[in-house]
């Protein structure tokens, strides 16, 4: 099973995080679980790179953090999208779709 997993291409982690947070605020661990579940365990998120990415997005002002209480009643850092983040998600998603369509087209033709 491990062999079928794909490492994330550069730069797509940010997009996935933004998309995951679009539904509701989440803490870091939930984000990594969520991405793996939704991608049917195909994408492998390096947990070690998740947190630097979250901090970077926070610095850019696309997501913001607040401390809250998790399901099992523990203090956890929750991230949520900001207005800028929502806009960024729309832009990046569109760019990604364009890219994948284009790549697919090239692959089909050749």
């Amino acid at each position, binding site marked *: 099973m491990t062999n079928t997993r794909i490492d994330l291409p550069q730069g797509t982690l940010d997009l996935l995080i933004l998309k995951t947070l679009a539904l509701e605020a989440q803490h870091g*661990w939930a984000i990594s679980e969520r991405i793996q579940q939704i991608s049917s365990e195909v994408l492998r998120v390096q947990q070690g790179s998740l*947190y630097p*990415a979250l*901090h*970077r997005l926070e610095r850019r*002002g696309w997501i913001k953090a607040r*401390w809250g209480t998790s399901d099992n009643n523990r203090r956890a*850092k929750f991230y949520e999208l900001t207005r800028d983040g929502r806009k960024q998600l729309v832009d990046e998603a569109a760019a990604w779709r364009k890219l994948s369509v284009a790549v697919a087209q090239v692959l089909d033709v050749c």
Partner: protein
Amino acid sequence: MLSGLLYRIRALFRRKTVEIELDDELRFHLEHQMEKHLRAGQFREEAMRRARIELGGLEQCKEECRQSWGIGLIESLVQDIGYALRVLIKSPGFTAAVALSLALGIGANTAIFSLIDAVMWRMLPVKDPAGLWVIDQGLTFQQYRTVRDNNQVAELAAYSSVHLNVSVDGSIEPTVDGQLVSGSYFSLLGVNPAIGRTISVDDDRVPNGHPVAMISYGYWKRRFGQEPSILGRTLSISGTPFTVIGVTPPEFFGLEVGMAPDIFVPVMMQPTAMPAFENLLDNPIIYRTWLTTLVRLKPGVGVPQATGALETLRRQGLPQGAKSAGPNFPNLVLTPASTGLSSLRKQFSQPLFVLMAVVGVVLLIACANTANLLLARAAARRPEFAMRLALGAGRWRLTRQLLVESVALAALGGLCGVLLARWAMRLLVVYMSSGRSPIVLDLSPNLRILFFTAAVSVATGLLFGLTPAMRATRIDLWPALKSLGNLLSRGHGGLQPGKILAVLQVALSLLLLIGAVLFVRSLQKLAGDNFGVSRESVLIVRVEPKGSDQRNIPGTTARLDRTYQTLLETVREIPGVRMASLGQSTPTNPNPGAAGQITLPSGATVRVPMVMLYPDYFATVGVPMVAGREFNSTDLRESSPLVCVVNEAFARQMFPGENAIGKSCTTSHRQNFNDPTRPRYSDQEEAVQIIGVVKDSRYSNPRGEVQPVIYMTFLQTPTGRGQMVLHVRVAGDSGSVLPRIREEVLRVDPTLPAFEVHTLAQEMDAALVQERLIAMLSSLFGALALLLACVGLYGLLAFGVVQRTGEMGIRMALGAGRSDVVWMILKEALLLVLAGVALGIPVALGVTRLAGSQISGLLFGMKAADPATIGTAALLLISVATIAAFLPARRASRVDPMVALRNE
């Protein structure tokens, strides 16, 4: 953008909290992950291990998160600064030496820059200073009134700076600087009072009808202890009580930069406030433009339009016969008044900019010196750098750290420099104030000055730090590490940039020395050019007897004349007095008398200052006669034919190539002083014969052309003024004669106040304050530059000698004598110095060519490219440098071959 900044600031300054949060966040993650594995049936230990592996190393993850905060650069910079400070504290001698030489350089720059800022750029503390204009030419009161009342383009206000005789509670104050201001003055400027009210338009309607005054904040504080009861108090100005109605705000010093008027009185009070002066509200006898006029344009009015409109009105007030636009009546010009008006600016801007260039060069030399020291130090620290490079430090990281060290040094120097500058500026202002009136400048540091100093410091640090830092980190690791211990004794190729720097220093200091010698010699020429006679022994007493203002009143002039004659007779009797005379002003005064009109034999009419004198004036003050004779007692009589003495400038301009003696001009200005039945002025043209020509008094205008002047005797001069200055030439010590003179002055007329007693020498020094300032400062900076360059040279040679101890030992072991070794080092030094001189002379010539007009404006009777000057400077430099080189050379010759070789 902003949120990112806030994020970074939080990460920087709430570092502890942020770190704890990071820990919590990651711990939370690990616990969840572990629970997940536990639920999948793992043992606790294994679950924990897996969770950690999946995160990929806790510390590594944390470090990556920290990098995401985007504060890495700042953090390592903070580290660098901390390290730099520790390094600098560890070698206090080096730090102090560098900081001191930089403090001198940066301090001098800050001081001169602050002066330039204060004199040139500071905005006036008034409403909308950018909309304020000033008419370049003065106006008479009539002109001002005409222009003010009839123009459609602008609001006007006027003022005139005056000395006032003030007494408070019956005791006489030292002469107070004041201003006569129009009623619109304060409202036009938008200046509100600190307390009380300002002089308004209603305080300035009727001549002599408004005895009110405002005083300055400084005077209020100084003289009246800031008591609010000052409002409503009366001050006596020239014997008339004036009521104080308000105090100007502390930041207001009038419009003239450098001046600080203490009393403001309505223009309409001029005759009352200045009884010793003619009534300037009336049509004065002589066209006297005594009002400086301020203009605020109405909305939508352009400057050219306003200039035209105002000029038309002004021309209506020009005196008869002068309406043709001659050189004496230049067209009206509006100049921006936003940074204040300043004769100070005219007088000192050029020297200040020259001095700015000079201190810039001093700073460059200090930079070169520091760079040299750092090079030597970097050589000593090579093992440290080699080790750090070997351990994996990046070269850029090392270079950056060295640069941070340099900038820290420069910042330290800058800090000390600012303190030094504050002290130096006070001295400078005191020195500049040794002229005719005290100079008050706002020298408080502002953003511009702070920015300048900070920029200079950082640039300095980078300038002197870059080369050493680049060289220090370019290390061949292997040999450097191999011989960690005795690296210093290897090779002297590392001195090459040091030599280049030494040559540069020598060249730059030669530049400054040439400048210094030039200015000093110019001053010597100027001071020694005219009055070869001992100027120490001429005393000057200004006398204004009662009634000297009312010369126009029949009978007054004759009475004044009798007073003066008696005064002269008694003063001449005093033992120790060799000669005495009265003149309208001292020979140093640039405006010696009111302009009078005279017609030349050619028929041309000229306006030149006419100065009233008594006989023996020229002999007393020591102005030599060039041709003809001085006045005698016959010329003094009113009934005698009119005669005059002119200066060389007059003779040269009016009678080029001719002998002026005996030439007859005509004037219609002869007045009738004594007979009330006759009209005041005779309409008849009357001949004035030139009987003598005197040498130009260069002191009256040290920098420019000497203006033509006509001298006439007291009773023959057409003027409304009657005040004179008593000049007394004494044989011995002036101190013993002075009280006797004062006594006699009082005995002749008890009402005669005698004030301002000083010597002609003091007056002359005051007249040359700009020249003395620039000569003194350029000498000071030249000496400083020389000192720095020699210290640099000394350091370089001393370092070289230490490095080459072994070589010296070998040479001496092989039979070289001490003198050979001394000569070897000296030769090396002389080569450097000569190279510097060879570089410096063409640079100096180039500079004088480029900035020739700037410099030659400050020189008197000297060419900027003067071979003697350059020779003197070069000789001075070479001899001092040789002394500096001799010390290490001698040390090299004292090397004991045995010891040197054993160490090797």
